[in-house]
């Protein structure tokens, strides 16, 4: 009768922590760079966003927003020239020094990469836009599935419990890439989705993106439900007993007492999962979604500068991941209630 007679196993972490704790000074640097990065990214997104464009047109503003410019033709805002000139100069200097100029050559390379990065930037921004909404939507839809899944796992009867267990184990036991292939090439889901008329026209993303969202939603729901389950199980049994004693029904108790506490405990795990999904969204490239990684590949095969393109995209992902982790820390402290769900190990 008491809430969790099922043994509450030690909360297992489904996947390890990505960022861990950033020491104070580095946190500040990451924060500062992060704000600049997002300011640039958001303006980029707005500047080429067809919804914003329509809105501007509708309210009669001049054509400030350039959503009609194809991705490949978009102009960078930071000129590559200075970097390239500087890189070339440093490179010559290095050459004059002979073999002992390792560090300087490296600097030249860095300048060249920076120059290259500015020319790539418009395309990467477009890719990052897809990466961003792919991740956010999948996390949210995943959460919607994960909550009932974990509740079923803890409070459900035998059948519900088993169903939830089998679902999470199957999803967590097979590679995400195989899941995406199955959905896209195996089931040909994109085709079914395309038939829904509006998909792929103008501002509505193409079908492959929907398939990716479905895949990531399924996958992340399984992981999220594990985090939420262990968070719910860490809520003291007495809470359920007390809620029932006041006369709340079992569902009401879960809704008003267990979930509000458990979900707070779940935030650190949830942050992790969020970060994981940002990274794993790169696998959507394999089913033709032109997200961040795919753009880097394309740029690489256009320019044959693969290594540089991948270094730049790695930095891009790092920026997304670190800023997300910091922002979620913030969320955690905002929703924290004294005594509930504050992770003690952070400053």
């Amino acid at each position, binding site marked *: 009768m008491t809430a969790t007679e099922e043994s509450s196993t030690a909360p297992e972490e489904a996947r*390890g922590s990505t960022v861990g704790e950033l020491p104070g000074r580095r946190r500040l640097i990451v924060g500062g760079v992060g704000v600049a990065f997002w300011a640039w990214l958001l303006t980029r997104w707005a500047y080429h966003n067809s919804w914003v464009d329509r809105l501007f047109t509708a309210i009669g503003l001049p054509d400030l927003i350039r959503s009609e410019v194809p991705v490949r033709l978009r102009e960078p805002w930071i000129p590559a020239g200075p970097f390239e000139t500087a890189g070339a100069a440093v490179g010559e200097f290095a050459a004059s020094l002979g073999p002992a100029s390792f560090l300087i050559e490296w600097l030249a390379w860095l300048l060249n990469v920076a120059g290259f990065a500015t020319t790539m930037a418009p395309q990467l921004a477009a890719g990052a836009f897809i990466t961003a909404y792919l991740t956010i939507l999948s996390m949210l839809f995943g959460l919607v599935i994960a909550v009932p899944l974990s509740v079923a796992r803890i409070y459900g009867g035998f059948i519900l419990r088993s169903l939830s267990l089998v679902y999470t184990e199957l999803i967590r036991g097979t590679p995400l890439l195989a899941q995406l292939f199955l959905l896209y090439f195996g089931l040909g889901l994109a085709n079914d989705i395309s038939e829904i008329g509006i998909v792929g026209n103008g501002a509505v993303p193409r079908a492959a993106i929907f398939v990716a969202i479905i895949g990531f939603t399924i996958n992340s729901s399984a992981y999220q439900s594990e985090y939420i389950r262990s968070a719910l199980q860490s809520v003291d049994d007495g809470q359920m007993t007390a809620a029932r004693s006041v006369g709340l029904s079992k569902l009401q108790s879960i809704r008003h007492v267990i979930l509000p506490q458990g979900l707070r405990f779940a935030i650190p795990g949830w942050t992790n999962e969020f970060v994981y999904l940002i990274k794993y*969204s790169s696998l959507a490239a394999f089913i033709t979604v032109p997200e961040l990684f795919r753009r880097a590949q394309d740029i690489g095969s256009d320019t044959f500068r693969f290594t540089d393109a991948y270094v730049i995209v790695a930095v891009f992902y790092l920026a997304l991941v*670190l800023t997300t982790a910091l922002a979620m820390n913030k969320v955690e402290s905002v929703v924290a209630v004294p005594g509930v769900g504050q992770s003690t190990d952070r400053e």
Partner: protein
Amino acid sequence: MDPIALQAGDWQFVLSNWRYLLLGTAVTISLTATSLALGFLAGFPAGAIEVYGSGRLKSAVSTAGVVLRGTPIVVLMVLVHFGLPIPQLGTLPVLDIQLEVFLAATLALGLRSAAYQGQVFRGAIQSLSEGQMEAARSVGLTRRQAIRHVVFPQAVRRSIPGFQNEFTIVLKDTSVAIAIGLAELLTRAENLYLQPGQGTAVMEVILAISAVYFVLTFTTNRALDYVERRYAVPGGTK
């Protein structure tokens, strides 16, 4: 669902290629093993450095950790493959894989895993009470002896659950090596259905290899559960 679904002929096709897939499984398992080994060898010292180290070394290790954990595995893999000058090492007979590709995949998966295993180990060390170290020092053990005889044995035991997670993640992420063309399980699956006329077998092939992955993760997890129980300190919580 679509009419392409599950045809007996396609299952037949999967079956007739079992040897080919089995070799892929062997590659997947080998890659998991080498990556985890690298991850362990590099990760545990890294974890120890993050706790006991100081200055340059410590901040270098923790920065490398953040970079490795913050970058998608597919990016790491292509970076290692294209960016690092790995010499040509020839082909491994039987498994039919190129060693330099295998090495690139091992480096990417292994170093990233090291970054995570380092975190696991660091957490395990930090979860030990300060008192253990003090008690060890109080009997006259040096710091190094105390770490070796008191902290590590306990921290390693506490790391097993984290290690278990890491194992499944690495196993599943070996499939990303398809990006650099390593002939592991998923790549071979793709090769199969890309053969002329086998386009309808996509679903069957992928379901088959998913089952293989699942069996691998499931059985190893159970095995590690057993190890954990076997080496648990009596009466102690892990």
